[in-house]
């Protein structure tokens, strides 16, 4: 699936560029983007390492365990196939809380660890398990409860009330997550 998406994105881009006469831009963009990727990775190295370091302390001290125990009923509902004592649930809860707090950089490494653990439980290593699908859908439905970046962008552009979107954004975020969970459960039931 990802192979198709990747190929189609590039092909659509080049075909459209051929018609709009933007071929030089495309050439430029492909070179620039690969350079950008290096910059992004360098920045990520520092920030991600800081978070995973901090999270390791939280993990070793049992903080993450106590948190994931608190939300265990929710985890059991979302990921019924995953055994209760699996490390996957710990990483999933870390990922979810980091996402809710808007700490995307901390969420990604925990999410990757969660996928690694889910893959260990997965019977067919090429096909995503139900738990993986559910975890990914929830991750892509946005969990961030308070969009501080957007609020600061709004105040940058002279909004008379930058934070007026907090309540509707909160509701909309809950809507996307609930819809994601419902759709994930329904599709998970259909795809045996």
């Amino acid at each position, binding site marked *: 699936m990802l192979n198709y998406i990747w190929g189609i994105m590039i092909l659509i881009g080049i075909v459209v*560029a051929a018609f709009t006469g933007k071929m030089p831009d*495309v050439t430029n963009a492909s070179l620039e983007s690969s350079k950008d990727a290096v910059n992004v*990775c360098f920045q990520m190295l520092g920030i991600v390492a800081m978070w995973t370091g901090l999270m390791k302390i939280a993990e070793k001290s049992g903080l993450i365990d106590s948190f994931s125990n608190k939300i265990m009923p929710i985890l059991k509902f979302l990921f019924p196939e995953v055994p209760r004592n699996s490390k996957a649930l710990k990483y999933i809860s870390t990922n979810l809380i980091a996402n809710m707090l808007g700490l995307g950089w901390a969420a990604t490494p925990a999410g990757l660890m969660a996928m690694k653990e889910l*893959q260990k439980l997965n019977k067919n290593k090429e096909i995503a398990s139900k738990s993986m699908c559910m975890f990914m859908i929830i*991750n892509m439905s946005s969990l961030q409860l308070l969009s501080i970046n957007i609020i600061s962008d*709004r105040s940058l552009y002279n909004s008379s*009330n930058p934070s007026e979107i907090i309540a509707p954004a909160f509701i909309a975020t809950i809507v*996307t997550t609930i819809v994601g969970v419902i759709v994930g459960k329904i599709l998970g039931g259909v795809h045996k």
Partner: protein
Amino acid sequence: MMRFVLIMSDLIMPLLFVYIILYGFSKHVKIYDTFVEGAKDGINTVIMIFPTLIGLLVAVGILRSSGALDFISSIVSPITDKVGFPSETIPLVLMRLVSASAARGLMLDLFENFGTDSFIGRFSSILMSCTETIFYTMSIYFISVKITKTRYTLIGALIANLAGVLASFYLTLYIFGR
């Protein structure tokens, strides 16, 4: 309210540091050694996703620079116009799926042209808050564990995203009006 939000956002990280470190002390964890151990894992993770990221950013870069999203917007805008959906925001809705930073750029353009307190400004703020970059997240996570068949993940994520677009639209309409 605004003040409270800004104070909160400044406090989240320091409080998390204090909480985790004090908790670590209370359980007699060798916190610095543990930090270094965890940081090493983090560096390995980033190096692992590096090639994925290069491939992804190149594809997004090509798509962005070609004007393909504007082209798609021009196709769907007659339909969206009928229901009163602002066609100016369609490129943003599409871009949000592939690139967070490019989508932010488009949102700032909309702020510039229509104002943050316009229907379009409020709608795009709420939309940006309740959606995620689907293709980025999917590639990074699935490729890291070598999953090739993603089953219903994409369709599920797209439905949730569409729900976000509709929710943002109607919430803006009901709370703030046109």
